[in-house]
């Protein structure tokens, strides 16, 4: 999955217009990632990448761009 596709998938998870996510957003921002959005994110990571992460692990990653790279790395290693 390209970075753009990843961002578009997150636009959907966070119920944002397509193209809203730039990658600089913080995963710890509760205005962006409320509890249902976090659920959606956990689901997406599990379904699309077979990755199981906890909400705390995700928030500790930092930005959405950093999450993309972490996901890429985890998939490459699996």
């Amino acid at each position, binding site marked *: 999955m390209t970075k753009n596709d990843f961002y578009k998938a997150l636009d959907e998870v966070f*119920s944002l217009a397509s193209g809203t996510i730039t990658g600089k957003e913080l995963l710890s921002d509760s205005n962006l990632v409320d509890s249902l959005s976090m659920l959606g994110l*956990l689901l997406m990571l*599990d379904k699309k990448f077979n990755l*199981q992460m906890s*909400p705390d692990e995700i928030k500790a990653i930092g930005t959405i761009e950093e999450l993309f790279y972490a996901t890429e790395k985890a998939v490459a290693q699996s």
Partner: protein
Amino acid sequence: MRRSKIIAIEHYLPEITLSNKTLENQFPNWPAEKIVRKTGIEKRHLARENECASDLAEKAAIKLFKSGICTPQDIEFIVLCTQSPDYFLPTTACLLQDRLGIKQEAGAFDFNLGCSGYIYGLSIAKGLIETHQVNNVLLITAETYSKYLDDNDVSTRTIFGDGATATYIEAEKEGNNSLIGPFVFGTDGSGKDNLIVKNGASKHRADHSVADKLFMNGPAIFSFTIKTLPNAINQLLKKANINIHDIDHFIFHQANEYILSYLRDKINIPSHKFYINLKNYGNTVSSSIPIALQEALSTGVVKKEDRVMLVGFGVGYSWSACLIYP
């Protein structure tokens, strides 16, 4: 071998309802369309201020008696599951014995479990009956989580609804195959802080420096669920010496549609076998499985001869699963 069987289920929902539109009016960033898309819930029922778990339980039990399946004088034991009892003491089941006119020779107790509670209750009833201690059990679930919710917590107000159920379980004629069971159980108390009402009981008695209202960490509960349930289901299938294709229907605790759809797909359960009905009820905690089971039976989705898997999971953390022939 003596067996036990679910004979009938009734439920009662309080009259007041909370719609998604009402939530949208209070939380404009939470539109009704988004609520139903994300949770599958359109409305939930809420107990009145002076309406308690015993009131809901009483009405569910009266519906059962009015159906003609049994009378109050028949009941030999009341097992009541609630996390919102009328009082810390006495036991809510004792109040029900008196109000329903059940004989004084009947046993009665409450147990405190949430979303896994109905299945634990079935196991208790099975144990009482199949060890010849009683011939029948009235299993009640009654929950008024709405009394614990923060008016400003949009997540919990969206998810939870109140309701009660009454299930009549009776000894069945001898036979080789169980009609209730086998069971698997599970507990992980390290998850206690992810769904909790901290204040009011012995740990923090009326200490308002501690949160009064229900706190729920939904994503953490989801993580626990996806880690735990597939394995629990496999354990149950192994215990029963069957495979997943031998199950006719699955009724999970109706937490929210996100989690349910995910679990269905993760465990590869065909949609037509997987029952979801939380649209008009929300998450009614220990009442969710029996409400769904009763509805599935009354609409013919589940037949009496079907093999059904029930799966409960949530607060505690606690989980359980069992097979039944309803």
